[in-house]
């Protein structure tokens, strides 16, 4: 399969794990030594390193999931991700880099569908056994604002 198809398949599966579950599948879209960060366009532009979520391995991503399932307290809510087509920036046999825009709406409790986040994924993928795994995903949110809290990953 070509890079575009591999990445598209992986992203479809990625958003499904968050939006429809099981959420435990979400970290499985990453390589063991993956880097994942959620930041803002403003921080990204200024080269500021911190994130609202910051992980430099897959174990930290699994901890995110067990924390939201076992420890953190919040009102039940769900997301729906809408992704643009991935723009493939570089590709080889073993992997690719890409950018994909996203829009995420959130439904909290029995509230309305609210626009929660928009932005782009800056990605590095590795191709392993016919699937694309994320080696690096920087989630750059367009706005500097987060409404109330961010529990589920983007």
């Amino acid at each position, binding site marked *: 399969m070509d890079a575009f198809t591999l990445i598209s398949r992986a992203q479809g599966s990625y958003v499904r794990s968050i939006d429809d579950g099981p959420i435990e599948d979400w970290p499985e879209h990453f390589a063991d030594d993956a880097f994942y960060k959620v930041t803002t366009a403003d921080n990204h532009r200024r080269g*500021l390193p911190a994130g609202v979520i910051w992980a430099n391995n897959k174990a*930290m991503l699994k901890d995110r999931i067990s924390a939201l399932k076992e420890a953190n307290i*919040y*009102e039940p809510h769900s997301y729906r991700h809408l992704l643009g087509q991935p723009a493939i920036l570089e590709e080889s046999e073993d992997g690719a880099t890409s950018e994909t825009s996203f829009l995420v709406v959130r439904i909290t409790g029995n509230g309305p569908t609210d626009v929660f986040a928009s932005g782009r994924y800056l990605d590095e993928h590795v191709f392993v056994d016919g699937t694309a795994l994320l080696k690096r995903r920087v989630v750059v949110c367009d706005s500097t604002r987060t409404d109330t809290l961010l529990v589920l990953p983007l």
Partner: protein
Amino acid sequence: MSEATTTMAAREWPQALSKVPYWVFQDAEVYRAEQQNIFHGPFWSYLCLEAELGEPGDYCATFIGEQPVLVTRDFDGEIYAFENRCAHRGSLIAMDHYGHAKDFTCVYHAWTYNLQGDLTGVAFEEGINGKGGMGSDFCKRAHSPRRLRLANVHGLIFGSLDNDVPDIEDYLGQEILDRIERVLGGRKPVVLGRFTQNLPNNWKLYIENVKDSYHASILHLFFTTFGLNKLNQKGGIVVSESGAHHVSWSAINREAESGEHYKDQKIRSDSEYQLEDPSLVDSFSEVGDDITLQILSVYPGFVLQQIQNSIAVRQVLPTGVDTTDLHWTYLGFEEDTEEQQLVRMKQSNLVGPAGYVSMEDGAIGGFVQRGIAGASGEFATVQMGGQEAVSSESRVTEASIRGFWKVYREAMGFSIEESK
């Protein structure tokens, strides 16, 4: 007496510091009076870090309450602040949160201001071909935006819109100054990231939450769930003399640690869940002492936070009766090693809008705001640890919340009920 003060005097506030009427979180008239009596009043509000204005020409557009203000560093090296409102017809003078400029030109009709906020130029002041223009009685010097009083506390820039504000040293008191110095003294902070959280509640509900050391181990279950609590910590609450400011702290207890049973008790080993990467909580002594947590608030809306090696400042800005902006600035320091910066990055997961031990605070104010709808005649009960607003060795107390209300109710000019 301002108009806001007169209308507030018609409202009765309970004599006991342990009763807080719910209308104070709900009433639009109260909200408007706060802008006058608190945010334009004789108090110091945090504006930005000195380190964020490193070069002459650097500026920060921020707020005191709803009032837009502009903080600048001029070419003389000094920091200035003035209202961010054009003296002509009121447009914002600068819009970028952080930017760099030699001077400011209002986009509407190009009135120009220098970095100290003096009006230096008026477009078409002389008119065109001798027609139009400003009258001869117009004096630029009489039309500059209002300047703020400024104070620099270990690199934290505070401003006040009221010239009668006490000196910052008297305002904070020695204990609070010492605790700020403990974290920031002699160090140059480096900004690691900035995040804004929209809170669905009145600003005072977030302030109560910050000052509430009672809720921490109950609402935030991250440390408990993963067995990361140290059982033998010591700590306490400092309430400043006026009641306005507070510090909540905890530290490793060396005495208990050297005791025989310590090894067995150090970590709750009965916890069902473990972190897959427990290096998240590996930390270093932040300033060479045993204090692992220090939450410090300065009235009305500033927080300096040390949670292990996660250092941040928080600025609380009301944006409506039931909406608040919480601005987080995550900090490291110039002398941090690479390893130390890595620790700070990992521990940034503890705080902010997605923080393991802070995300609940983003929602809890909204739960209260929704819970008290229809209860404007009722009262919150704040009597944990007694009725006073004083320091204590126990953190199971609401003393610093009582301190906040003590200062607040006086600043607002409510009538205090006669005691029965």
